[in-house]
């Protein structure tokens, strides 16, 4: 970002100027508020004051340690992973509407999960509760690798080919999932449907650790390459002329995003809109520079999913709503608003 010494602020742009000086301050504040709120709200009430002074009943303590904290933290990590991958994908495809779905993670994971639920009755007990997670991770990455290989077969490693290969492979995976859905009985169909709507209900400490182990290095990797992603937005040839090894950069971005989204999808099913909307929001409020966009998306994505999941597990208690429904309910209207804003010519100004 340019130093602002020579940049005269237009009138009325003070909040934005403030955001530019410390762009991560507001997102971090939001995340802190979301985490605090999420820790206190739930089926077992844990008042903030009791939490702060540590005056908790045994049940409150047990619920906090075994259920709520891992869940809230998992929501944060998954939200961050999805938003960061979305930001990186949008940069890679030079398209603000791109999301990690383009590289097949979600469709491949869904196909693998459907296969386990519908076909692999005896096998599903093998990994116990992690059966679906393992299948989702493997299926998502396998599909991504397939798209990647097809793209390389075309000779040039072009994002356009990748997009087209992605559409085709996604369609095939979708057909496979559809066929398995057709074969499924009631109970399997229910399991499959709920999986595709996402849930953080299975949050356990190991899941938090696993996703964080993948998502944190991937995010660091993307932040390190953020300047090059900026330059890639000028065009691939331009980026190479500016000394950026675009093939390597594309590989780094795809592998980082695929691993993070794969891990996120594995533990939480498919949660839509976070990867699309959060980077958009950051671009509108803070700016398009990936060196800020990626960390800010991580923080804001975490905050958004923590809030959405808190809604998901409280508004219909004792039952819970699939969190994907909540994020889409928030994300859908917001996205429409963005489109309107974009078409009325005020986008980005």
């Amino acid at each position: 970002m340019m130093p602002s010494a020579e940049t005269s602020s237009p009138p009325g742009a003070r909040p934005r100027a403030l955001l530019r000086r410390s762009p991560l301050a507001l997102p971090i504040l939001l995340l802190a508020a979301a985490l605090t709120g999420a820790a206190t709200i739930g089926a077992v009430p844990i008042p903030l004051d009791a939490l702060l002074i540590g005056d908790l009943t045994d049940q409150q303590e047990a619920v906090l340690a075994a259920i709520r904290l891992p869940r809230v933290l998992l929501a944060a990590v998954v939200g961050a992973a999805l938003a960061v991958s979305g930001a990186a994908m949008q940069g890679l495809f030079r398209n603000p509407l791109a999301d990690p779905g383009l590289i097949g993670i979600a469709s491949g994971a869904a196909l693998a999960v459907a296969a386990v639920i519908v076909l692999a009755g005896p096998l599903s007990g093998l990994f116990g509760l992690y059966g679906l997670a393992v299948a989702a991770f493997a299926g998502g990455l396998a599909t991504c690798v397939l798209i990647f290989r097809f793209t390389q077969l075309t000779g040039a490693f072009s994002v356009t080919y990748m997009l087209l290969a992605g559409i085709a492979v996604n369609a095939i995976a979708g057909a496979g999932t559809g066929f398995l859905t057709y074969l499924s009985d009631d109970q399997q169909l229910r399991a499959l449907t709920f999986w595709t709507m996402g849930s953080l209900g299975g949050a356990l400490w190991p899941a938090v650790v696993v996703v964080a182990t993948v998502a944190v290095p991937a995010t660091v990797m993307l932040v390190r390459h953020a300047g090059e992603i900026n330059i890639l937005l000028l065009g691939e040839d331009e980026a190479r002329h500016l000394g950026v090894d675009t093939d390597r950069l594309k590989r780094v971005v795809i592998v980082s995003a695929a691993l993070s989204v794969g891990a996120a999808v594995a533990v939480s099913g498919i949660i839509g809109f976070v990867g699309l909307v959060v980077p958009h929001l950051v671009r509108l409020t803070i700016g398009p520079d990936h060196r800020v966009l990626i960390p800010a998306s991580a923080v804001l994505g975490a905050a958004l999913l923590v809030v959405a999941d808190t809604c998901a597990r409280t508004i219909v208690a004792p039952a819970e709503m699939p969190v994907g429904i909540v994020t889409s309910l928030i994300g859908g209207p917001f996205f429409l608003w963005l489109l309107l804003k974009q078409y009325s010519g005020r986008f980005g100004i």
Partner: protein
Amino acid sequence: MKRPILSFLIAAAVAVTATTAWAEAPRRVVSIGGAVTEIIYALGAEKLIAGCDTTSYFPKAAEKLPKIGYMRALSAEGILSLRPDLVLMTDEAGPPAVIEQLRAAGLNMISVAPGRTLDGVRENIRTVAVALGREAQAADILTALARDEAALVAAVDAMESHPKVMFILQHGGGAPMVAGTGTAADSIIRLAGGKNAVTGYRGYKPLTPESAVVLQPDAMLITDQGLKQAGGKDGLMAAPGVALTPAAQAGRIHAMDSLLLLGFGPRTATAALDLNRMLRAE
């Protein structure tokens, strides 16, 4: 609310078919629904079955019968190709358009409501028996059922308290799918002298793990199939919230075959007795 109307319709249907069936007893029957097939076997009429759906897997011999697919995703031509002169089916069979096509094709069709009580089971046994002309065999089954029921009532009356039971339909890694009110699981739990731990919603829904702790179930009930999917008792114990319930702390996690537990067929009274024994053993 719907029951009386349904019973009336069924009675009417039986009356209509009974007159035709009197002259010519059915010889090729397609059976749709695990409980319906069980009843046919119990009546000793299995030789009449030309085909059945995939939920018909008890007794074991039924697995070998020609299959017409899953009961909610039937195809009209598949059923017609078996040239049945009678289709005996549960109300849950579908899709509705296919059922309508079968009716339009002039098939003789009798449907029974999914049982939720022993009375419902008795009614279904009678309906099927009349349709197949096996009233004599039905009388024997009903006698045995009455005997089991008496034993069950005595056992339930003898209970000092009615433990809270949580039924987990499946646990695939997210939030567990748990039975609320108005479900077959709710019915069998109450029949066996327990109370459903979940009264906050109807049907099967994902239960937020913290609620499992708040609801304090004394026992957990799951199908064999569901337990296998969850990775056995150890797997289920590791799921969020489960370990913090009194049920898990006392090791009271019971598993039963899903058709036996939820099918409401001829074995339901013995299934309820088994379940009652498990609950009392605590």
